[in-house]
């Protein structure tokens, strides 16, 4: 390890692979009910410190596990995720279970329906353990904006797990779930996966239904999986992807067998490396780890070449105008009228709206709603929102030009490894700037995978981001698999 002062309590434990667990369950050596019970025991031990789970859905989980055991006992064929314990980020709804989106404004809310991605997991046999903590309304890069306390990084519990899907990433890294679902609007799956040393997938916009995802920014939000390895992440994506009539932005494109695709060798794939992602602000130890990953790809038979993405530096301002504008519209529905806590003693309707929202929303959410409202308001719409959408097109076209020459683009997922709790909370803009490597892909709608790629000298995980063209997740998985196989130290 290193000489850095790292807390000696480590909560890290990697789950078994889907293949191994499936074999155990199919042969009856492992009972799904016992597996689930084991996960709940581990959660009871580790969650008080990590705060990854906000609530547990034991009844539903154990009923599902019992169903799986009955199927296995009869020798019936098992669905692809039979008995596999999975955690769900609290921005995705599970019928009858609390959904807070990490906010006080939804305290007590129990949705009357399942998100499509959740329903698909359950139909595939998954055992849904509970709801995972996140930044409020998915706004944040550290999970410190949760109204229910931060999540701690299992690798070093004095550090953040990243955000906004901090609970989802931490749960896999601490084996509090075999896999989890999160959401990614500006990096909220990729960055925490990178910080916690697990695999995270950014599906193409529209690849996975957003029905049942509590909306943050509707043209950016994606639902995606976390897992301990690339093949399992690919398997999960295959289960949740697909057209959904309930989501008008859902893609009708057929879903490939992602798991089979990621077994194909990466040799012959062309890899692009953009200089703009290796400039100032990148931690030298992160750079060193990523360079090892790139060397491994060359050794695996990939052709590596530079690509130019000159507008990269404009991505953050574009993102923070578009995302906040869309958020200001999406969060208008939280007003105390139909669900959630309602402020008491308001004399008028307008007063009730104001007080309920004032009491229910945290500071970061208010900041973003104000910024977004300003950018959309009369007199400013053209200068801010429209301008941002124009630059968005330039950013997207830049990627498409690059993908005409390469199959995948690799970059660091984040400019640093996990920072300490409280380190960046004083300066919102500094927190935003940490998203620099993830937001452009969000704006362009393209897909990507983050895969563990070595550590810093202090042992903190580093992630490599592999980006691919729209609907080309298979290529991203193949490249990620090659990096994973190289076992970068």
């Amino acid at each position, binding site marked *: 390890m290193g000489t850095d002062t790292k807390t000696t309590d480590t909560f890290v434990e990697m789950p078994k692979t889907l293949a191994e667990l499936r074999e155990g369950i199919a042969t009856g050596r492992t009972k799904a009910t016992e597996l689930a019970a084991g996960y709940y025991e581990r959660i009871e031990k580790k969650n008080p410190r990590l705060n990854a789970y906000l609530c547990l859905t034991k009844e539903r989980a154990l009923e599902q596990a019992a169903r799986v055991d009955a199927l296995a006992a009869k020798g019936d064929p098992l669905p692809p995720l039979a008995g596999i314990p999975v955690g769900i980020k609290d921005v995705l709804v599970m019928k009858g279970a609390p959904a807070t989106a990490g906010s006080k404004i939804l305290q007590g809310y*129990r949705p*009357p*329906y399942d998100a499509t991605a959740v329903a698909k997991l359950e139909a595939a046999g998954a055992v849904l353990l509970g709801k995972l903590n996140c930044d409020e309304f998915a706004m944040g890069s550290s999970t410190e904006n949760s109204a229910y306390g931060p999540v701690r990084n299992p690798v070093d519990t004095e550090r953040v797990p990243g955000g906004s899907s901090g609970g989802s990433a931490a749960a896999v890294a601490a084996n509090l779930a075999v896999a989890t679902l999160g959401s990614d609007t500006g990096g909220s799956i990729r960055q925490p996966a990178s910080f916690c040393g697990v695999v995270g997938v950014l599906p193409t916009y*529209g690849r996975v239904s957003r029905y049942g995802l509590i909306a943050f920014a509707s*043209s950016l939000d994606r639902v995606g999986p976390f897992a301990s390895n690339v093949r399992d992440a690919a398997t999960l994506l295959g289960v949740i992807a697909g057209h959904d009539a309930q989501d*008008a*932005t859902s*893609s*009708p*494109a057929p879903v490939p067998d992602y798991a089979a695709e990621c077994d194909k060798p990466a040799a012959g794939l062309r890899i692009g490396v953009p200089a703009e992602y290796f400039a100032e602000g990148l931690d030298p130890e992160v750079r060193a780890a990523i360079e090892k990953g790139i060397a491994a790809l060359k050794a695996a038979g990939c052709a590596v070449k530079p690509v130019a993405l000159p*507008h990269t*530096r*404009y991505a*953050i*301002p574009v993102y*923070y*105008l578009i995302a906040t504008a869309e958020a*200001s519209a999406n969060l*208008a529905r939280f*007003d105390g*009228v139909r*669900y*959630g806590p*309602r402020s008491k003693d308001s004399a*008028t*309707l*307008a*007063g*009730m709206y*104001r*007080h309920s*929202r*004032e009491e229910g929303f945290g500071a970061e959410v208010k*900041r973003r*709603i*104000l*910024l977004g*409202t*300003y950018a959309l*308001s009369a007199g*400013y719409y*053209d*200068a*801010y929102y429209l*301008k*941002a*959408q*124009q*630059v*968005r*097109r*330039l950013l*997207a076209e830049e990627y*498409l030009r690059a993908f005409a020459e390469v199959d995948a683009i690799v970059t660091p997922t984040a400019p640093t490894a996990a920072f300490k709790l409280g380190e960046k909370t004083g300066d*919102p*803009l500094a927190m935003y700037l940490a998203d620099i490597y993830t937001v452009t892909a969000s*704006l362009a*709608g393209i897909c990507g995978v983050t895969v563990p790629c070595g550590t810093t000298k202090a042992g903190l995980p580093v992630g490599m981001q592999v980006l691919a063209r*729209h*609907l080309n997740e298979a290529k991203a998985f193949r490249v990620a698999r090659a990096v994973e196989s190289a076992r970068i130290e």
Partner: protein
Amino acid sequence: MGIAMTARVTVEEVERVAELAHLELKPEETPAMLRDLNAILDYVAQLNELDTKGVTPLAQVSELQEGSAAGELRADRPLPSLDRAAVMQQAPETDGVFFKVPKVIER
């Protein structure tokens, strides 16, 4: 044309925007919010460096995907929605059919 991005939001403008967003900032919250907003608006103003004349705004990335169904509309057919009783169970105040709220107009 029109207004280019400028920073320097005033207290009055923050209050106006808060009103539009049905948010109420406490007096002690306002200075920090003003400072943060101005810092962010200052930062986003760098987009002014770019010439975007003639560039079509990109609002829906689906249009960049081959075979996308973006813009296709479904048939206008009424379908069952959520169960009313289940929805009303979540309401802070209800008569079972409607959501009850404080009066809209002050007499």
